[in-house]
């Protein structure tokens, strides 16, 4: 249960490749922000790109890719809670008759 499996060492070329990808994606986010695709689509695309960048950081920089399955399962729980914490208040606010100030 505490066997010290040889830590998988991620080599610098992988790190540099990931960093370059992140730079490119940042430029893409800024560029996409220039085009107006309607209120809902803008935010979803921005969040999608940001989530993709975030997963790159998590998988490679934080070595999540090489961690045990247990940690993968454990990460799901806070992510689900985060979605609930964001989704339910929005559902409530959207359907209110008069938002805040009628």
């Amino acid at each position, binding site marked *: 249960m*505490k066997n010290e499996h040889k830590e998988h060492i991620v080599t610098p070329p992988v790190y540099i490749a990931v960093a370059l990808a992140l730079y490119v994606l940042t430029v893409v986010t800024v560029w996409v922000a220039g085009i107006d695709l309607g*209120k809902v689509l803008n*935010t979803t695309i921005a969040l999608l790109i940001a989530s993709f960048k975030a997963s790159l950081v998590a998988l490679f920089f934080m070595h999540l890719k090489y961690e045990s399955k247990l940690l993968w399962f454990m990460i799901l729980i806070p992510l689900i809670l985060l979605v609930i914490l964001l989704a339910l208040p929005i559902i409530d606010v*959207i359907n209110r008759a008069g938002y805040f100030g009628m």
Partner: protein
Amino acid sequence: MEQVLKSHHEVEEKHAGLEGAKMGMWLFLFTELLLFGGLFAAYAVFHTVYSKDFEIAHHHLDRVIGFINTLVLITSSLTMALAVWSAQTNRRGLLNLFLFLTILLGTTFLVVKLAVEWPVKFAEGLYPGGKEFNHLLQEGHKGQAIFFSLYFMLTGLHGLHVLVGVIVLLGILFLALRNTFSSEYYGPVEVSGLYWHLVDLIWIYLFPLFYLIK
């Protein structure tokens, strides 16, 4: 961290070892996620209600500074990852260099934010309680006032976390300079690396949500 207690023939871990430390840090990062989650929930609710005001208000923010800050933080994540690599492969010189670079980039991020971006807002009085802020409220642009409150709360809390990260990394650099880390024992470097990457990860979300709203 690892006082190994040898009795009879069994090797006992007095503590949970590297595996345990990493799991402990991941659990702590979950709490950070949910801490920022509460603020992102407030952002989401106010963005849904005041989307037009948010769009107007975000023009006050300088997109170029935001972009530069994002690149700075991504590079600092790169140098942090390389620092962990050099600790794992016993390259002590490189470890000290990359740690120093990460701290330098982190401080640059803080300097750009606190010395360049925020004073502009304070000068314009766009902070909660400021002249322009109250003027916005009187004119009924509540959404814009809320935007700036959110901006200062989120970037402020994030900045605080960057500051804590820099202080922790200074501690690690201090230990690294005294050769405490090697390929046998690099736990603290990896764990503080995890924390630093999370701080960068949160900024990756903050940048589009504040600087690029349409």
